[in-house]
């Protein structure tokens, strides 16, 4: 037991150290921008993975929560000159409340109701961003959002912003890591395996599902607020169905029910378009193919792939030195 806890803490510390040192190894500032966007995606995908991977519920409207938070803090700080922390708090609060209202009726029913409910919700929010021109600026977007600042201290350089975003990402990662190892995490996995069985064993399935749905919307809201005060401009196109699908694809590719997978999936699909400019028009086809093929042939995603490679390498090494050893069963997912 002691060894396993040690493993997850050292894993996290190694991840944190890598994230903190990475800016010093980058050849130019452009990569910093890409990694900041990667950080938004990591936060979003960790949240969505708690919902999809651990509780087995699909949200096709996560971009709407992301956008709702970005627009709320953007409009409050830009148009109404609220202080930035107050705007962010209002955005987080609004998204949490909206997620609770959406989740309450749909989560009592089976999974596909939530998927459809969130799909519809995402489209409606997208319509509102486009139509409420007086408040949101309509299809051309909303500009003039102030840079992130705390009590007069403005975060202006990309390098500083990188640390803010990845600091938040690491904090939220640690929170999720603790959550899935707790009683709540076990309840969520029980719901994923069989809702009926979990309910019979006394898990209040409706309440846990609503909780994790609201939590994952909160993660999206954090990413949205950081996005708004980094880019200082928001437009409906960033928060449409395409983005929701991208997020689901990141979760599936990285590996459901794996937080490391969430980080891998988010970073991989953030960097892929940078590496392959030629795929610009085909990206949606690639996401579709990843969804179908991953679910059919690699349900555990990159995380499982990486673990299989690691296990294979280890057993090969062990066979070389001491012959085949009994497999210790590995940590449960």
């Amino acid at each position: 037991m002691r060894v396993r806890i040690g493993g997850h803490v050292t894993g996290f510390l190694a991840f944190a150290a890598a994230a903190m040192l990475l800016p010093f190894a980058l050849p130019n500032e452009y990569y910093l921008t890409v990694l900041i966007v990667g950080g938004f995606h990591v936060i979003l995908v960790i949240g969505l993975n708690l919902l999809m991977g651990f509780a087995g519920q699909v949200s096709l409207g996560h971009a709407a929560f992301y956008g709702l938070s970005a627009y709320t803090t953007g409009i409050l700080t830009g148009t109404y000159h609220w202080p930035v922390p107050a705007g962010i708090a209002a955005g987080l609060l609004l998204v949490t409340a909206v997620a609770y209202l959406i989740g309450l009726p749909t989560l009592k029913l089976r999974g596909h109701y939530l998927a459809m409910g969130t799909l519809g919700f995402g489209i409606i929010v997208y319509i509102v961003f486009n139509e409420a021109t007086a408040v949101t600026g309509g299809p051309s977007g909303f500009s003039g959002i102030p840079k992130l600042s705390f009590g007069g201290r403005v975060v202006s350089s990309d390098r500083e912003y990188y640390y803010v975003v990845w600091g938040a990402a690491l904090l939220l990662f640690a929170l999720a890591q603790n959550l899935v190892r707790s009683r709540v995490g076990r309840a969520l996995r029980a719901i994923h395996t069989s809702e009926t069985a979990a309910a019979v064993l006394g898990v209040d399935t409706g309440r846990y599902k609503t909780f994790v749905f609201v939590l994952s919307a909160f993660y999206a809201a954090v990413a949205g607020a950081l996005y708004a005060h980094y880019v200082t401009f928001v437009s409906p196109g960033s928060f449409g169905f395409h983005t929701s699908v991208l997020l689901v694809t990141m979760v599936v590719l990285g590996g459901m029910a794996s937080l490391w997978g969430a980080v891998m999936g988010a970073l991989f699909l953030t960097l892929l378009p940078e590496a392959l400019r030629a795929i610009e028009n085909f990206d949606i086809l690639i996401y579709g193919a990843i969804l179908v093929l991953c679910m059919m042939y690699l349900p555990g995603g990159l995380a499982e792939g990486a673990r299989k490679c690691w296990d294979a390498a280890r057993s090969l090494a062990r066979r070389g030195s001491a012959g085949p050893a009994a497999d210790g069963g590995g940590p449960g997912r």
Partner: protein
Amino acid sequence: MTAASAFLQYVISGATVGSTYGLTALGFTVIFNTTEIINFAQGEFVMLGGMLAVFALRWGGVPLPAAVPLAVLGVTAIGVLVDRLTIRPVRGRSPITLIIITIGVSILLRGGAMLLFGKDTFPLPAFSPGGPIHLGGATLLPQSLWVGGITLLTLLAMKFFFERTLSGKAMLACACDRKAASLMGIHVESMVTLSFAFSAMVGALGGVILAPITLTSYDVGILLGLKGFAACILGGLGNPFGAVVGGVILGILESLGAGLLSSGYKDAVAFVILLALLFLRPAGLFGSSGAERV
């Protein structure tokens, strides 16, 4: 135009569009009843129906009376392929797996249509020539009569199939209890394939009859699929008759909402109704017990 004739106009145009929602909903119902899968690619079948007809006409030079059945048959074949290639290999896996796979399929179909046909919006000629018919101050397009007639015929044909034919009864048996059906010698796998074929067929039919009125493009499937699902919930998930009636009611409500409130938020109406139903009456207007099928 008086208030009464305006109201009539909204009802007529709403019922026309609603027929396609109803046929989409019927497609959802057929697959859900045999497999308990909600097929997120259902809206893409509807889109493909309209798009294939347009392109058989434009590129293939096929006359309209042949292009329409050709498009429906083409989409039916796509439905069978979807089942064979993506659903059958993972049968029995958890619902979230199947949901994500059908989402992936819908993205592939939409993306494929975008690459093949481009991002433009296309018209399809009406099935019969002739100007609008005036009716109590409102106007009725001849195409609306085609839509209503074909929807009604489809519903009757479905009813006949499920109640009078051996295959239809076998499909219903799978819906009741798959294991028992298989023990009675019913080949469940073929029934599932058949349900995908059917559902693609009615979806494509819904798409092709509506295309002359609303035009079509590669991305109409998302909203049509969503509204079809809302129609399913309205009529009670799993009830084919309820699905079609739910679609027509939804179409009328949406048209009234757009006409009387705001046209910019027209697409929001279906979702507001969907959420209200999930809150208040998840079993639908015609359902009796809870919507959960354990």
